[in-house]
């Protein structure tokens, strides 16, 4: 079974990669399996300077999902390049850097810094993080801001740029078109939906930041719908994500029009989620009558 999938700047041996923020920089999960098995790796967000992130608690469990408000904690792009990315060199799998920021200038600065690294193959532009006070999500909900930051980052980047869209919008196609117009090489969708859980005993939101991003199987129908809608309207490559647990889920994303998939929350429940999905994929594809991954992409459209 041919699992190869080709996206701008990325020829992946299989379409499955861990999602940003759910895999750190790979070290921990490398204890569980050989990271070379992965189609690619999207690492944790990088900002211009080190960020502490939000106060704790930062996570809560919901029905078939979870909330998180990490707040982009990371050691800063310089340290990531120096101390984190070199570890991944020994694995035969492309690395996608996730770029975040509060201002267009910060996004551009991070991108320019990443240009110096040879340890990455692409950039994922995170304009959709709902857990930071300034920046992040505004870029992800205003088409003109999204267009502007995409354009600037695209100008600054030597690597292909995948723009990660926020699902917290009325019209996802409009957002996709805006960033495609600005030159995005691909899309990553979806990031988390903004949610809240209240602690009944303490009478206040469980997450210290009050709101957090909802991820996991609960949001899968929203992700599938948005990818389907964007695929109907545009030809741009898509890395699909949101609630993938099994190889069947991955297949559903491919049918909806994703060219590859990312697995986030599932890693926490099962550190072996990615390799198990990769392992199951050939027989699942066969069961549903497909000969290769590229054969499936977009085939759920009527």
């Amino acid at each position, binding site marked *: 079974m041919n699992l190869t999938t080709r996206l701008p700047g990325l020829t992946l041996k299989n379409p499955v990669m861990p999602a940003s923020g759910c895999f750190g920089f790979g070290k921990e999960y490398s204890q569980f399996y050989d990271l070379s098995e992965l189609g690619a790796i999207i690492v944790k967000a990088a900002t211009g300077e080190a960020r502490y992130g939000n106060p704790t608690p930062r996570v809560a469990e919901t029905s078939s999902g979870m909330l998180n408000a990490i707040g982009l904690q990371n050691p800063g792009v310089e340290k990531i390049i120096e101390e984190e990315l070199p570890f991944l060199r020994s694995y035969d799998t492309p690395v996608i850097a996730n770029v975040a920021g509060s201002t267009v200038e910060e996004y551009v600065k991070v991108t320019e810094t990443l240009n110096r690294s040879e340890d990455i193959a692409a950039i994922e532009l995170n304009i959709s993080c709902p857990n930071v006070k300034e920046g992040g999500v505004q870029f992800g909900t205003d088409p003109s801001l999204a267009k502007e930051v995409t354009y600037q980052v695209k100008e600054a980047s030597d690597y292909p740029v995948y723009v990660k869209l926020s699902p917290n919008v009325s019209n996802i196609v409009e957002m996709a078109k805006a960033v495609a117009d600005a030159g995005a090489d691909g899309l990553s969708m979806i990031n988390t939906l903004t949610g809240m859980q209240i602690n009944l005993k303490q009478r206040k939101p469980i997450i210290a930041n009050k709101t957090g991003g909802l991820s996991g199987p609960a949001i899968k129908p929203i992700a599938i719908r948005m990818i389907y809608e964007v695929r109907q309207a545009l030809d741009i490559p898509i890395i699909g994500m949101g609630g993938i647990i099994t190889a069947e889920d991955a297949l559903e994303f491919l049918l909806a029009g994703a060219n590859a998939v990312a697995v986030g929350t599932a890693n*926490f429940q099962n550190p072996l989620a990615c390799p198990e999905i990769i392992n199951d994929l050939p027989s699942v594809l066969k069961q549903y009558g497909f000969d290769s991954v590229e054969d499936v992409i977009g085939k759920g459209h009527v």
Partner: protein
Amino acid sequence: MITKQLLTIKSHMQIAEDTFEVVLHSPLAKELKPGQFVHIALANHMLRRPVSVAGVDTESETFTIIFKIFGAGTRELSKFQAGDSLDVILPCGSYYPVDQLEIDHALIVGGGIGVPPLYYLAKTLKEKGIKVTSVLGFQSKEQIFYEEKFQALGNTYIATNDGSYGKKGFVTDIINELNPAFDYFFSCGPTPMLKAVSGQLDGHKGYISLEERMGCGVGTCYACVVPLKEDPKKSKKICKDGPVFSANEVILT
């Protein structure tokens, strides 16, 4: 080497109100050190539940956990039976560095579900010939467990919030009264207790073990950080760098 394993439950029994002791079989049991925890998956729950190791039997390759029903996950955990299997990540986190320390007399201070890891620690210390004094706090008489087991390791004092057993009040009240001699203290329990104890024992050498809501439990998600005293803009991860920290290392909030 951290792994995910399907472990068989050897025994499962209630030992106090809402409190259960579960013995699990694993070839890795002998590698579990006092202070470490295991991360347990539950059907119908997105996130795993962290539970401390309360004892290890190297011969039978088993280890013990003790937990209290707190919410839906621990309630589900309470319904398992001997013979059932649990999906567990282990070993997780840091441990009390007993081998690296020169100790004569250890003061153990535990509260509620902070008590289980301290039993494994106390037992290990005692086996090394170290004198152990234990001060344990519970909400009420019905919640007390392992009292005799602690007694067997050294003097043990118990406080209950409602005064239904032992001293009425907190572990700090006992420590105040007792003013025990010790060179290292080891504490685990709810954060308010840890704060009170570290405050009271400020200046002493000691280790504390923290709790926080976790995502991954292995260090990838940054859910469980705690700020450092030396620089509150820096943090460590409770699941990976902790749960055991030197008493003056982190800021308790």
